[in-house]
């Protein structure tokens, strides 16, 4: 893995400040986590447009909806675990159902939770957000993409959920990167199998592909920075071209990227899909990397799982069994 770059939370906080003059309608609501999610940068620069909402995510989300109904474009930035679950009904009714332009930043998405353990590890937020009609769900890979996707979220007319990571991440994209909404990005070409990854896992997928390449296996790597709307065409094309998909996500195996990929290819071009992610269980305390390793989410483990699935698929194809 390359040397760590900037943390997405830093990039997100800086993006808010950068966008503020261009978007005078933009305001920021903080359920008392601004120093963690880095909206403190916005507070320092634009105190009159920053709202300290206290430890009350539900109130913050609905207040944001009320503000949005009056022409403002509010960001609510909170821990992903509590934003997506505690305030799920508020997001569902006051944001998704109304279609108001409330922008949600789920900070501390997935595992890197500042060693918060089970309660703070948001491994179901993508599933919750993906189920909301009209919600755009974004999972940027690095700091540059987090910044660009904050812009993207502002540009779409309705609500959006931007998932950002606490930890420093390797740089995949340069500062001029402009992602396209709903389009997967091919990070590496390949024909034997395709690794579909989201967010911070795309860098690991790329490393896994390099390991596989040394073993003579050609793995395509697709980065899904947009989880919804899902790029079903890219997933289906990979299924047709490669015949085996391996999804990798910093999320439970159910409900997120792996589920979206299965739904897409099952309807268009069925193939085997190996879903890598967290099991149907709560996470626990410990070093982030130790937990990623326990669940087979290091580059080496991803490569090994992909290789095993490829051998299994080839063997089954050779035997002619389904």
């Amino acid at each position, binding site marked *: 893995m390359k040397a760590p770059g900037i943390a997405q939370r830093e990039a997100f906080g800086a993006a808010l400040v950068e966008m503020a003059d261009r978007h005078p309608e933009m*305001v920021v609501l903080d359920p008392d986590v601004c120093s963690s999610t880095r909206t403190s940068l916005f507070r320092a620069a634009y105190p*009159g447009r920053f*709202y300290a909402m206290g430890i009350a995510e*539900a109130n913050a989300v*609905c*207040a944001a909806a009320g503000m949005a*109904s009056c022409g403002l474009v509010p960001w609510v930035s909170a821990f992903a675990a509590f934003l997506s679950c505690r305030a799920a009904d*508020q997001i569902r*009714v006051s944001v998704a159902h109304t279609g108001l332009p409330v922008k949600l930043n789920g900070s501390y998405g997935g595992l890197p939770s500042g060693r918060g353990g089970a309660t703070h590890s948001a491994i179901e937020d993508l599933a919750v957000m993906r189920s909301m009609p009209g919600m755009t769900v974004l999972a940027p890979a690095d700091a540059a993409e987090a910044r660009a996707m904050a812009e993207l979220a502002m540009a779409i007319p309705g609500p959006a959920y931007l998932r950002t990571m606490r930890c420093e991440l390797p740089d995949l994209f340069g500062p001029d990167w402009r992602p396209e909404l709903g389009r997967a990005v091919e990070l590496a070409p390949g024909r034997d199998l395709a690794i579909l990854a989201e967010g911070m896992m795309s860098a690991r997928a790329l490393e896994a592909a390099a390991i596989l390449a040394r073993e003579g296996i050609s793995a395509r790597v697709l980065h899904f920075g947009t989880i919804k709307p899902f790029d079903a065409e890219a997933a289906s094309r990979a299924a047709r071209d490669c015949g085996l998909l391996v999804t990798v996500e910093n999320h439970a195996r159910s409900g997120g990227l792996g589920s979206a990929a299965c739904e897409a290819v099952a309807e268009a071009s069925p193939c085997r899909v190996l879903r890598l992610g967290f099991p149907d269980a709560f996470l626990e305390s410990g070093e982030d990397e130790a937990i990623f390793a326990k669940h087979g989410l290091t580059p080496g483990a991803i490569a090994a799982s992909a290789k095993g699935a490829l051998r299994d698929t080839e063997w089954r194809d050779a035997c002619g069994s389904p």
Partner: protein
Amino acid sequence: MSEQIGVLQGSAGELEARARRLRRLILDTVHRAGMGHTGGSLSEVEILVALYFRVLRNIDPGRPERPDRDRFILSKGHASAGLYAALALRGYFPESLLEGYDELGSPLQAHPDMGRAPGIDISTGSLGQGLSCGVGMALAAQLRPELGGFRTFVLLGDGELQEGQVWEAAEYAGALRLPGIIAVVDCNGVQLSAPTGPSLAPERIADRWRAFGWESSVVAGHDLGALVPALEAARHGAGSGPVALVARTVKGRGVSFMEGRCEWHGKAPNDEEYARAIGEVGG
């Protein structure tokens, strides 16, 4: 405020006639649909008449999105039949639209939907969310002077006060002394399956708002002569901080066999009950 479009003049007798008409429209609507929250729609009638025909400023049925209008949120969104009847009476849409209430394709959804019906300032339906939305509107009015310092009225049920989010919003607005927000509690004493009980008696509810930093008082919720000045005073008082008005009401008000009875929380009258009910309410 120099301009007061939307404040209709008229005698108290005219307002009372509108209240009778509103009750009749509610009964027509829920009876025709065969569903609806009859009890809680009948208890909010005078509050809606006072607001839509006297108190709300700059509301304009011909221009429901007018930016400087006072906002109204029916946080107890299940009592939509009352709101729709009030909007029809005020001219936002023809009364004939009430005939499609809760039917497929109707703009009048079971719970108010801002994307479908004119005059709905925000969608509601999940109890406890409306006051927070109102707080957001009040914050927007504060941030954007070009909106003319509008007021936001939020109508809550007394049973709804059991939702914790109400008190998140109350705490926030109270601590900030947030201007421009008025909570009105339709304190009809009955929720879906039982009476609300002593902890939700009107005076105790008023005490709660005071404890959260709101100005608060109790008013007779079916007496237009008391309600209109109380709402006007609340609107004025909200210039310097949040105000709560606890309206002492009767569930199912106006129909003897519905009054105070929880079985009329979410039920529509059958043909025979409807005939008796409209005989009692007039309008």
